[in-house]
């Protein structure tokens, strides 16, 4: 049984306008997203800025109410308050998500007491344990957020999320704001914790190298939709969706002797206020066909590891099946 089951999840934000401040349009941030995550798995969610990654994560943990669709955690709907402890969210911005007027110790104690995690007498020692777990010294408990470096603040965020002993961690770009050397420390830390605590992790990122390194599987989003799901084992061999392939080719390789032409995906992403009726990628796709403009392709299972939403992949036109 999967730990997490997301079915047909939709989230749109109303846009108010006009004299009466009525809803004039909506931003369709997450559109018909379905996937599941097994216990102990690490799944990456990747896609361009604005494609709906954070909104998806927040809707899963219940920070946003879903517009439609369901999220089950071990067969319980996640709108159930009982589950709040089980699922924790690490926010994208390590700076703004910590209360500047509370020391690290106060912040952790508050969370621990609120959720009644350990008997009150053990709160202090549990705070020490948490700080040690994320490799911050116990003197860190007396410090305020601004007295930490970016990487240390991110550790503190992780400690706060882990304080309630969650089973699922949703980490929204936990290393994007950090230097590569600090990024490596945080990735190592998450890897250790995953092993020690058996955590299941949804890892949101736009950095392909990081997702490839850290995750078992990745979900590729474009304009609110899942366009491909695949194992991270060998993405250069397996990727099938034209957008995923474009991402791989735009990913600058860290080797100056391996310099091809920079691959250019032309065009701009359409607005999520007014997504195209057919395939979300059609305006930038090199192999788009007529049917792509009008009929949205659906996610089709290929083998047991992969799902792709693309006409050219799942039902190639017989006449010119070979890709140009």
């Amino acid at each position, binding site marked *: 049984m999967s730990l997490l089951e997301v079915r047909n999840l939709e989230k749109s934000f109303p846009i108010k306008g006009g004299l009466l401040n009525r809803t004039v349009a909506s931003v369709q941030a997450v559109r018909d997203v379905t996937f599941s995550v097994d216990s102990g798995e690490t799944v990456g969610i990747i896609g361009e800025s604005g494609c709906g990654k954070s909104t998806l994560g927040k809707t899963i943990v219940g920070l946003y109410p879903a517009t439609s669709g369901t999220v089950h955690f071990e067969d319980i709907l996640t709108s159930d308050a009982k589950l709040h402890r089980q699922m924790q969210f690490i926010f994208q911005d390590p700076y703004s998500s910590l209360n500047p007027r509370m020391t690290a110790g106060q912040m952790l104690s508050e969370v621990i007491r609120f959720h009644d995690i350990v008997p009150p007498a053990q709160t202090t020692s549990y705070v020490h344990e948490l700080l040690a777990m994320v490799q911050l010294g116990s003197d860190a408990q007396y410090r305020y957020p601004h007295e930490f*470096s970016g990487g240390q603040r991110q550790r503190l965020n992780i400690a706060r999320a882990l304080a309630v002993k969650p089973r699922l961690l949703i980490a929204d770009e936990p290393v994007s704001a950090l230097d590569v050397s600090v990024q490596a420390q945080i990735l190592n830390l998450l*890897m250790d914790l995953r092993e020690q605590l058996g955590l299941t992790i949804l890892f949101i990122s736009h950095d392909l*190298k990081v997702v490839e*390194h850290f995750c078992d599987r990745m979900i590729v989003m474009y304009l609110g939709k899942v366009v491909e799901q695949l194992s991270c084992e060998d993405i250069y061999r397996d990727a099938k969706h034209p957008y995923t392939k474009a991402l791989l080719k735009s990913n600058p390789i860290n080797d*100056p002797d391996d310099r091809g032409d920079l691959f250019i*995906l032309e065009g701009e992403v359409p607005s999520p206020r007014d997504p195209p009726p057919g395939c979300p990628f059609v305006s930038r796709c090199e192999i788009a066909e007529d049917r792509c403009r009008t009929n949205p392709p659906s996610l089709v299972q290929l083998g047991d590891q992969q799902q792709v939403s693309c006409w050219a992949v799942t039902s190639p036109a017989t006449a010119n099946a070979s890709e140009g």
Partner: protein
Amino acid sequence: MTDSDTPTQTPTAAPATSGRVVLSVRNLSTSFRTDHGLATAVTDVSFDLYAGEALGIVGESGCGKSVTSKSIMRLLPEHNTRYGSNSEVLLGSDNLLKHTARQMQEVRGNRIGMIFQEPMTALNPVFTIGWQIDEALKLHTSLDRHQRRQKGIEMLKMVDMPSAERRYDEYPHQLSGGMRQRVLIAMALCCEPEILIADEPTTALDVTIQAQILKLMNELRARTGTAVLLITHDLGVVAQTCDRVVVMYAGQVVETAGVSDLFHRPAHPYTSALLKSIPQSGARRTKGERLPTIDGLVPGLFEMPTGCRFADRCEFCEQKCRDEQPGVTSAQPDRNVRCHFPLNPDASRSTHESA
């Protein structure tokens, strides 16, 4: 520059030393007066920029990359910024650090264009794109209003702006991040400067848009011969676009090398550690392995050690490193390192170690 018919191919590292130096930064030290005393953010930084090359500056956050570029452009607040007495930023025979505000205005835009880290804050939200380009053209050209509009639209087309005529009359918030960055590039290049300084031009952008912008910069460089100083902490971007690289650590240049040497034969322990800490993609994928990290912290501006600034974090540190600040040594022209015990012996010979 001779015409090249392969403009889309990223130029590979050329023997840059044979070129003409267009900008020479000599012993640049930049300090700020703060409540706690004088904070020296950049210490004794020297490098040359050759005509037509792309020179990368890399290093972790806070190491002084932006202060270096803003010192060159004299964009730091004059009232509390101090430059070292022997510091020079030579554009031809002119020392920009000695220029008056008026002279600098001539240099900015005309001879050196700059793209900033934050595309949103660099554009004024209350004016149209066209108005802002027009202001730049007014300042630097003698074109009339009609000609300026023509030229402005032409520039937007040059940076591949979709529907340039319409975009000219739009406001910054109506443009995507990638389009805004194109506008800034167009503005920076409007007077065909000899030098373009780009401070993290793609950090706020997606990889697919980043690739568009990098390609655009490469093409412009091939076409106009503009030298590019590219500041970034993305080593992938450096690997794919730069000819040579300057690595900074804690306000100093610790290594300068051709891009291939730097990635394959780093001489400074910091460069080497930095390269190892990046997750690798594709065939060299580092799946699930622990990444080598650089333990410890960068020393603060007020607690710089007397010896090597990397000593506390360096796995090769010896007593000498703590006692003596390493000088810059160089075995080949354009390859130098600031370390007592460089990793790649060929890369460096101790030339002025005892000096």
